[in-house]
């Protein structure tokens, strides 16, 4: 086991807890200030994936939900690197994604948006980053969908990401958006992010990542808190 260092959570990068334009924050955002604590062993350790080996199917959403055919929609490749704040890769960390289908419908039973389910698409995948911190998913481009936050509210196309990171202090759940989406300008969830940091949530189209006669490629790098490689001994010295 090793423990990691972690920088402070950068509140200039992350959305605030209370964000009135996003209505659900009103009853769910804590009202007392967070209590600052020094990070110790409890925060600088964290789980690593120790389950059965992940396969190609786990990261191929165009195949892992098939029943009697291919999912409908525009096939895309989503790839990128998971890095720490020094720019060093974060290897062997679990990346989990979930998303709506091409019509903008989630398989979740609570999703009541009037758009069709796709019998051949679930919309969930997982993979581990390689030694260079690279992850890669095959999927279809998720559709936009309507929600009830405010009149005529629509979520931009997005893919949900969850990363374990090297320690629980570096745990991250976020969403990846697509370049040029006109709905971004109206989305209170995206707009909750401080202006200077918003662009970090938008993937870049990449012709290099695009596979001829197969799928468009999008690049989305993710930066987790802290630096890799600080050994646990440091903790005991302090």
């Amino acid at each position, binding site marked *: 086991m090793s423990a990691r260092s972690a920088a402070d959570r950068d509140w200039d990068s992350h959305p605030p807890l209370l964000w009135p334009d996003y209505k659900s924050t009103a009853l769910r955002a804590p009202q007392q200030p967070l209590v600052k604590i020094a990070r110790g062993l409890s925060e600088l350790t964290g789980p690593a994936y120790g389950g059965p080996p992940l396969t190609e199917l786990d990261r191929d959403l165009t195949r892992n939900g098939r029943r009697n055919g291919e999912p409908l929609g525009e096939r895309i490749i989503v790839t990128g690197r998971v890095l720490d704040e020094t720019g060093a890769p974060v290897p062997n960390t679990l990346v989990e994604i979930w998303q709506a289908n091409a019509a903008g419908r989630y398989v979740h039973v609570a999703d009541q948006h009037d758009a069709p389910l796709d019998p051949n698409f679930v919309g969930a995948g997982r993979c581990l980053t390689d030694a260079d911190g690279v992850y890669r998913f095959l999927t279809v481009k998720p559709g936009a969908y309507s929600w009830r936050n405010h009149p005529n509210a629509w979520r931009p196309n997005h893919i949900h990401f969850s990363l374990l990171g090297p320690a629980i202090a570096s745990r991250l759940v976020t969403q990846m958006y697509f370049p040029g989406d006109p709905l971004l300008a109206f989305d209170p969830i995206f707009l909750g992010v401080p202006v200077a940091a918003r*662009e970090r949530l938008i993937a870049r189209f990449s012709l290099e990542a695009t596979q001829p006669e197969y799928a468009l490629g999008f690049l989305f*790098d993710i930066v987790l808190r802290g630096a890799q490689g600080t050994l646990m001994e440091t903790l005991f010295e302090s």
Partner: protein
Amino acid sequence: MSPSQESSQTPSQTIGPFFAYGLTARQYAYPGAQVTDAIVADETVPGPRIRIEGRVLDGAGIAVPDALVEIWQAGPDGRYAADARGNSGFSGFGRQGTGTDPECRFSFVTVKPGSVGAEHAPHVNVIVFMRGLLSHLYTRLYFDDEASANARDLVLALVPADRRHTLLARREPVAGETVYRFDIRLQGPEETVFFDV
């Protein structure tokens, strides 16, 4: 993207209402695997067996039906596990949504953690995600039957004295098992203490 942007933290976003089939597929009976679940320690792990049970309550006092709760804890020896699911039967890592129980409870089967050091009382690290939270919350569960250890704990000492009780799980008399109750209150006079770690 400039180099300075590349080294800045990727912003958090809400987990949203529809994480269940992605992160907790087994619990919610969707196809697919999940990395860990409510079983943090299986029956092969020596140590005092406990169950941690609670709800997440919003500002109206309503139990939240779409929260995801993760826990990370040391074993009875005070050591953290290396892997989420190692050979030992103890992962130290649990994950459960509040949407499958009729009362929106989460429930973890585990062993009581030991102290990770002289100035640390036994505790469980808790992370809370949900729709309406743009950034996740960190808190800690301490045990109400560890009064002397709690009195020496460095982190509890940073918490205003009149709020420390919000971090104490209460041991409840339940036949045949040891249950600690830990409700997480997002707002109100009994708001749980959340940490900036």
